């Protein structure tokens, strides 16, 4: 199978480097569900399809689509694509970070941001259809639809793609060592499969419903002609069960269910608040619940970031507890816990927030002359802005909030108040258990396979996922040693160290400066992440980049563990673009603020272009070289 796959890849070689950038996952995923037999020839085309099939944007494309079913699946496809590449579309459109030229109005804005995901989805569905029967294909299409709703990251992550890119790349870069990782990836994808399908099936149902409505709307529009054509072609194609066609159909459907202009605008991520924009800051201040005093010594470089005196909010908040009527006590409590740092870590914060919201929803009553959907959304927004004032949201929380809001917005009007509340609460519970807890379990399950006897594992700070992995591996009786690297702002590593030592793991503790000393003995680096951004950047606790960089310099594989719900479509080139500034620490206070001091406890780590996150765990050994070769 392998050689057959590789051949077409060589054929489309001009693109390949580029292809790695997008979200890819191994095709082996498709094997997990259905059996393999059908797999032998289609995968070729599945690997081709993402690059070759033009998105159905123009009439020319549609014509193409019509033409396609008649031709044999593989070669003609690539040839037509090659022929049209110059004119009707370019392959670049498929990649998330690139703005699409998109001449037709209805597709224009969407594609640039999420187009990559969609196309990825198309690809994935292509692969799946190839392997399975028709209904599966339909299922995957809807998975993509789900990504229209705010919860998009959640589904896009599950996008299936080919792993072809990985082996080739890694071989090119480092020869033998890579093969392990690759295999692992395929393994991992297999394991993850059942879980996603569950989650997606639900999403599917939702999305299908939405799609129908959207398709109707679309049909009424002026551009409806194109859409209908596409739909027709899609219908014609499907029975043929040809991979690329299915993929086309997928993209078609996606096209069809893109919401009308207005919604789409909302969907585009808003530019983040820039704190050097005076008028906006003023506005925000007026709305603010918590009065924050600005830092006296503002650091010029961080003008665009909020710089406040730390520790000043707490007494203020306490004093005004009774004036803060709109904030539910549970939310208030969580906010304070954020503020004091009692709850930290992306997962913990997210779970705490969701539980508080659950509580708040339970106690919620619809005021007179208001609708639940509108009022509750506003309520949640006010809670969120309160929480933001306590501490800026993590991306995981942002995603969870988007999920919740979309749930609220989608509540059928027919539901009674109590039913709606119950459904929302169960949604929240499900989110926590599936997206966080179950995801963690899956991560642990196959990250453990990467720990072998005699390994020396290095971890930085305190990541819940990594901790679970280590403990689980220890329970399985693996013999390994853990190096806990810590750094100053919070010394979270000490907490982790304490827990690990109590469980009987043999540990080595050191500080971040000594990381290049200790890296000689390390065989594997496990890192947690706050988020993974769509350009492959991992966003994590400050210092993670240093560790990853040193590991790379010492040729040690780095494995980042990140739940899929933390993925985000934003891009960021370095840590200063967007960040949270921590408090200048007490320890430096022996000289009273003579100089400006800043600590960054939460910094974006830019490890540019980790190619393809396969589902849950991202392996990025050598991603630095890879990116170097890309840039």
């Amino acid at each position, binding site marked *: 199978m392998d050689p057959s796959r590789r051949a077409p890849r060589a054929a489309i070689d001009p693109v390949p480097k580029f292809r790695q950038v997008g979200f890819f996952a191994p095709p082996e995923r498709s094997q997990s569900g259905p059996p393999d037999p059908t797999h032998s020839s289609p995968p070729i085309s599945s690997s081709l399809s993402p690059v070759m099939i033009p998105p159905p944007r123009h009439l020319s494309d549609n014509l193409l689509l019509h033409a396609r079913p008649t031709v044999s699946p593989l070669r003609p496809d690539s040839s037509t694509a090659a022929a049209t590449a110059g004119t009707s579309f370019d392959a670049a459109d498929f990649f998330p970070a690139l703005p699409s030229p998109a001449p037709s109005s209805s597709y224009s804005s969407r594609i640039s941001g999420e187009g990559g995901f969609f196309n990825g989805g198309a690809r994935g569905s292509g692969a799946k259809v190839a392997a399975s029967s028709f209904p599966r294909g339909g299922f995957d299409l809807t998975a993509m639809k789900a990504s229209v709703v705010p919860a998009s990251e959640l589904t896009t992550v599950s996008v299936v793609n080919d792993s072809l890119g990985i082996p080739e790349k890694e071989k090119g870069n480092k020869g033998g060592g890579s093969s392990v990782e690759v295999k692992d990836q395929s393994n991992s994808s297999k394991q993850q499969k059942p879980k996603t399908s569950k989650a997606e099936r639900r999403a599917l149902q939702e999305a299908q419903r939405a799609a129908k409505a959207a398709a109707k709307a679309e049909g009424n529009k002026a551009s409806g002609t194109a859409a209908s054509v596409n739909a027709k072609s899609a219908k014609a194609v499907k029975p043929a069960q040809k991979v690329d066609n299915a993929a086309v159909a997928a993209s078609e459907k996606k096209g069809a269910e893109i919401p009308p202009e207005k919604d789409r605008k909302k969907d585009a991520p808003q530019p983040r608040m820039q704190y050097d924009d005076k008028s906006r800051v003023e506005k925000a201040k007026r709305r603010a619940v918590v009065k924050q005093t600005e830092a006296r010594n503002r650091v010029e470089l961080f003008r665009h970031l909020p710089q406040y005196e730390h520790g000043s909010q707490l007494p203020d908040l306490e004093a005004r507890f009774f004036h803060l009527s709109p904030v539910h006590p549970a939310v208030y409590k969580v906010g304070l816990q954020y503020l004091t740092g009692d709850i930290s870590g992306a997962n913990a914060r997210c779970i705490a927030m969701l539980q508080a919201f659950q509580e708040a929803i339970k106690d919620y009553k619809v005021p007179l002359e208001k609708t639940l959907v509108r009022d509750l959304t506003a309520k949640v927004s006010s809670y969120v802005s309160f929480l933001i004032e306590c501490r800026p949201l993590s991306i995981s929380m942002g995603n969870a909030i988007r999920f919740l809001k979309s749930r609220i917005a989608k509540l059928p009007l027919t539901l009674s108040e109590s039913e709606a509340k119950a459904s929302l609460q169960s949604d929240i519970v499900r989110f926590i258990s599936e997206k966080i807890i179950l995801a963690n379990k899956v991560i642990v399950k196959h990250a453990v396979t990467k720990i072998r006897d005699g390994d020396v594992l290095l971890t930085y700070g305190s990541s819940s996922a990594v901790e679970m992995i280590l403990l689980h591996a220890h329970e399985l009786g693996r013999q390994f040693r853990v190096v806990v690297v810590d*750094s100053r702002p919070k010394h979270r590593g000490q907490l982790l160290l304490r827990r690990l030592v109590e469980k009987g793991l043999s540990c080595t503790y050191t500080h971040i400066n000594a990381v290049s000393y200790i890296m000689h003995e390390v065989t594997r680096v496990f890192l947690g992440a706050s988020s993974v951004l769509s350009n492959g950047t991992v966003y994590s606790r400050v210092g993670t980049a240093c560790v990853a960089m040193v590991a790379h310099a010492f040729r040690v594989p780095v494995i980042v563990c990140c739940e899929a719900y933390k993925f985000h479509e934003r891009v960021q080139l370095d840590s200063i673009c967007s960040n949270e500034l921590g408090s200048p620490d007490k320890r430096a206070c022996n000289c009273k603020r003579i100089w400006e001091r800043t600590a960054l406890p939460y910094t974006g780590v830019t490890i540019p272009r980790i190619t393809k996150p396969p589902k849950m765990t991202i392996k990025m050994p050598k991603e630095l070289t890879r990116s170097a070769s890309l840039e």
Partner: protein
Amino acid sequence: MPDVQTLVNEFVNQLKKRKIEGSQATAKLTAELLRSVISQQRVPHTNQATALIIAVRAVGEQLIAANPVELAVGNIVRRVLHIIREEDLSLATAAMAGLGVSAASDDEDDVERDENSALSAAAVAAAARSTLRPPSLQTLLEDTSESAVAPHTSSSGGESDGRSRSVEKGSRSRKLKHDVIEAVNELIQDICTCYEQIAEQAVEHIHHNEVILTLGSSKTVLEFLYAAKEKQRSFKVFVAEGAPRYQGHILAKELAARGLQTTIITDSAVFAMISRVNMVIVGAHAVMSNGGVIAPVGLNMVALAAQRHAVPFVVLAGSHKLCPLYPHNPEVLLNELRSPSELLDFGEFSDCMDSANGTGSLHVVNPTFDYVPPKLVSLFITDTGGHNPSYMYRLIADYYSADDLVVKRRPTTVSCV
């Protein structure tokens, strides 16, 4: 002699207990100690140089053994040895010149002839020097006449050539010692003022509105930055605090007191900040012959980050930090592990640290130094100017003679390590 021995023992003790910190202080103290050793050393009439060398070596061996990681000690010992050799050589050539002159004056009292012979003797001396020192840019540019003049003016051997004719051997021996002590004094002077010469070059490297990153505390860096500030350059300085000793705080405090815009960042934020930094300027613990740097812990990380973002990584080093050795596995062999108490508070994990009771043992690693390989260094700034890492071996060859690289008398054991 017991007087010197007690001095030596005291110094050895201090070195062993790591009471002396910083390569500059160590270098200075070493040089002063060696000076007193030399001055107290009784020299025989013949072979005074050898006697001195043996004495200095004996002491130097002890000192190096006391703290093999403090490379400055070995550097200074080698430099003093080099000084003795040079002075001896210049005296010998001067004597030869004197002999030649006296022979000439015996024949005829022609001044010109005298001059010529002196010149030729000086040329011999220069040639001898050049065997001691490999050729450098300086000797290339200097004419032979200049290099011939040099011994006349600078070296004490030259200026005494008029007198040396009449000088007896006894006074010549005193002369050597005297010259050596003079030269060692000069060396001490150099060590004390090296940062001034380095700071003079600051204006060439730091410009307006630049952002400089440094890590830990270094007097040289402080003076360097301050010198640039004094020249009306306005720039920002980011100081990484340098865990676990947080010497960056000291540096930042000092910089802020001198009116520089200073910001402290944690070490972990180095990678985040480096994209906004124009230049990384750091001090070093020692510079090895291959251009590698033994530096305070954490600098390797900074250097890697700087390389990743193509930020120049500049190392400031006085000449006493130039070590003529080539490092082998320096992260381990030229390193020192400090107390874990700097990382974990006493008692916090003490139950786990007891490795005797088997399971769940905890190690705490707290190294002192990092090794920065030469490929990560963009520029060395020493008191003789800026140099490429690949040039360091050459620069170092100016200060040491090849015979002294191994201080220990038994060449079977590798020196220093």
